C-alpha cells in the first residue's frame, strides 16, 4: 500500500501512461481501443466534476448527466444548423470550436445556475430526488425536441468541430486534445479543492449549520461549486458529442447520472484521482467483461454483464467504501 506522499509520483506515472497510450495501443495492434481511451478521458472529466459535489461538498447530485447532455446538445444543435444553413434563436449554426466549446461550457453553467439555485434550497434526500427530477425533466425536454430528432437524436453530418491548426477529425489528435483538456480541468480542480474556497466547501460538508455563525452563507458557496461542476460536465458532454458525432437524449438518461455516481464511488469519493481510476475500471469492465465472459463460454453473461456488475457495486458500497483509492493509498493523518 502506498501513502499519500506518493501521490505526485502516481500522478506522473498516470500522466505518462495516458500520453504514451496511443503508441502502446498501436504497437499492440489494438488501435481501435484509442476510441475507448478517448471515452475514458472524457468520462473522467465528468466524474471529477461530480466528485467536487459528492466528495468535497457532500452534495449527492443525482442529475449530473443533465449538464453532460446540455453541453452535447449545444454542440449538436449548432452543428445541425450549420449543416441545414438555418439559424437558432437568431444565430447561425457553426462548427467553429473556439465558439462552440466555450459556449457549451457557458450554457451548461447557466443551466447549473438555474437548477442549482432551486435545488439547493433543499437538503439531504430532497436534494437527491430533486436533482434526479431535474435530470429527467431535461431528458424529456430533449426527447420533445422533434426538430433535433426527438427520441433518436441527431448525427453531426459534417464531422467534429473545427479548430485552427488542430484537426479534431484525426483520431489520435482528438485523443490528445481531450487529454489536454482533461489535464487542465484536473489541475484546476486539484487547485480548487486545496484553495480557501475548497476549505469552505470541506467545512460545509462537515458542519453546515456552523457556517452562518462565522459569517458564511452555505447556499452561495454550494451554488458556486454546483455551477463549476455543471460547467465541467457540460465540457465533457461537448467533447463526447464531438467524439461520437452523435447527440441523443440517452446522454441525459438518469441511469447515466447513476453511472457517473458509480464511477465516483468506485474510485473513492473526495480524492479527484479516485474517480479517474473509477472511470478507467468502469470502461475496462464495460469493454472487457463481455469478452471475458465470452472466452469463459458464458455467452449469456456476455450481453448481460451488468447482472454481475450490479452485485459488485452493492458489495463495494457495503464493504469497500473508500473505493480503489482506499485500496491503493493509506490516508495521511
Amino acid at each position, binding site marked *: 500500500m502506498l501513502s499519500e506522499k506518493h501521490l505526485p509520483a502516481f500522478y506522473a506515472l498516470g500522466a505518462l501512461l495516458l500520453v504514451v497510450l496511443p503508441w502502446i495501443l498501436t504497437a499492440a495492434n489494438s488501435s481501435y481501443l484509442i476510441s475507448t481511451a478517448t471515452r475514458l478521458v472524457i468520462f473522467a472529466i465528468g466524474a471529477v466534476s461530480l466528485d467536487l459535489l459528492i466528495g468535497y461538498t457532500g452534495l449527492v447530485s443525482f442529475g449530473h448527466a443533465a449538464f453532460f447532455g446540455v453541453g452535447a446538445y449545444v454542440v449538436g444543435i449548432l452543428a445541425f444548423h450549420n449543416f441545414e444553413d438555418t439559424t437558432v434563436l437568431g444565430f447561425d449554426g457553426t462548427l467553429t470550436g473556439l465558439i462552440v466549446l466555450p459556449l457549451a461550457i457557458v450554457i451548461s453553467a447557466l443551466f447549473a445556475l438555474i437548477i442549482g439555485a432551486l435545488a439547493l434550497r433543499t437538503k439531504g434526500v*430532497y436534494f*437527491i430526488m430533486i436533482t434526479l*427530477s431535474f435530470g429527467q425533466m431535461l431528458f424529456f425536454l430533449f426527447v420533445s425536441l*422533434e426538430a433535433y430528432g426527438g427520441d433518436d437524436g441527431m448525427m453531426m453530418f459534417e464531422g467534429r468541430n473545427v479548430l485552427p491548426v488542430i484537426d479534431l477529425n484525426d483520431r489520435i489528435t482528438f485523443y490528445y486534445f481531450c487529454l489536454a483538456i482533461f489535464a487542465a480541468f484536473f489541475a484546476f480542480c486539484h487547485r480548487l479543492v486545496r484553495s480557501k474556497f475548497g476549505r469552505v466547501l470541506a467545512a460545509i460538508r462537515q458542519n453546515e449549520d456552523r457556517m452562518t455563525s462565522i459569517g458564511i452563507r452555505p447556499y452561495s458557496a454550494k451554488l458556486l461549486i454546483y455551477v463549476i461542476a455543471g460547467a465541467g460536465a457540460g465540457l465533457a458532454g461537448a467533447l463526447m458529442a464531438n467524439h461520437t458525432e452523435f447527440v441523443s437524449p440517452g446522454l441525459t438518461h438518469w441511469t447515466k447520472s447513476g453511472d457517473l455516481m458509480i464511477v465516483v464511488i468506485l474510485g473513492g469519493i473526495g480524492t479527484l484521482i479516485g474517480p479517474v481510476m473509477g472511470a478507467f475500471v468502469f470502461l475496462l469492465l464495460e469493454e472487457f467483461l463481455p469478452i471475458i465472459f465470452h472466452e469463459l463460454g458464458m455467452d449469456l453473461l456476455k450481453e448481460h454483464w451488468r447482472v454481475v456488475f*450490479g452485485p459488485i*457495486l*452493492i458489495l463495494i*458500497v457495503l464493504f469497500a467504501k473508500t473505493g480503489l483509492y482506499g485500496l491503493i493509498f493509506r490516508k495521511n493523518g
Partner: protein
Amino acid sequence: MSQLFFEQLLNGLQLGMFLFLVSAGLTLVFGFMNIINLAHGSLFMIGAYAVAVLTDLTGSFFLGLLLSFPVVAAFALVIELLIIRPLYHRDHLDQVLATFGLILFFNEAVSIVFGRTPLFLNVPEALSGAVQITETFTYPLYRITIIAVGLMVAAVLWFIIVKTRTGMRIRAGTTNPEMIRALGVNIQALNTTIFVVGALFAGLAGGLSAPLTSVEVGMGENLLILSFVCIVIGGIGSIRGALLGALTVGLVDTLGRAFLPDILEQFLDPATANGVGAALSSMSVYLLMIIVLVFKPTGLFPVIKAV
C-alpha cells in the same frame, strides 16, 4: 370538448392511482426507516412480470394477481434482509448506489430470463367492458377498477395509520425514531413489515398495469422518478402527502399532454404551439414540483421531525 376533458380527467386519476400505489411504499420506507430505495421501481416490474407469467400459467388474471403477492413479498423480504438492513445506518449516498446496483441486477436478470421482447397481457374478460357514464360517454371498466383499487388502498392505509396501534407506532417512528426505540417496539420486525407491505403496493401497481402497457425491462423506472416528484410535492413521509402529490401529478401530466398544445395554439402559430406544447407538457410535473419547492421547500405536508 367537455367529454374529452372528462375522459382525460379519469385518465389522470388513473395515473394518479398508480403513482399513489408506488409512492405510498416509497414514502413509508423513507419516513419510517430513513431509507431511499431506488429498487422500488424494480418491485413494480417484478409485480408485472409475476402477474404476466402466473396469468399465463393459471389462465386467470385474478388468480395470477393473487399469486403474484407472495412472489413479490418473497423478493421484497430477501432484498430487505440482504441489502436494505445493512444500509439502515448508512448515508443516503450509499443507499442510492446500492439500490441502483439492485436495479442493474434486476433489469439484466429479467432480460436474461424473458428476453428484450415485451410481454403483453389482455384485460381480463370480466373487466373488459366499458361503463356507460352518460348517454354518449363510456369509459373502460378496467380503468375504473384501477381507480377504485387505488381509493380502497388509500382508505385501508388511512385506517391502519390513524386507527391502529401499529399505525400509531409508524407515525411515532416517523416523527421521532428515538422514542419508538425507547418504547421497546421490535423495530426490526416493523421495518421489515413496512418494507414488504410497501413492496406489495408497488407490485400490485405493476400487476394492474400489466394489461394496459407492455411488460418490459425498466418499466418501473419512469414511474419511480415520477413517484419521487409526488412525494417531494406531498412531503416525504406523509401518506396524505403521497396521495395528494400522486393525484396532482397524475392530473397535471395527463391534462397537460392532452390540452397544452391546443391552449397554446390560441396564442402561437400551430407549428410552434405543437413544439412548445410538447416540450412544456413533458416537463409540466417537474415545473409543478419546482413551484411547490420554491414556496414550500419540504413539500405541502411536511412531517415535522422531533429533534
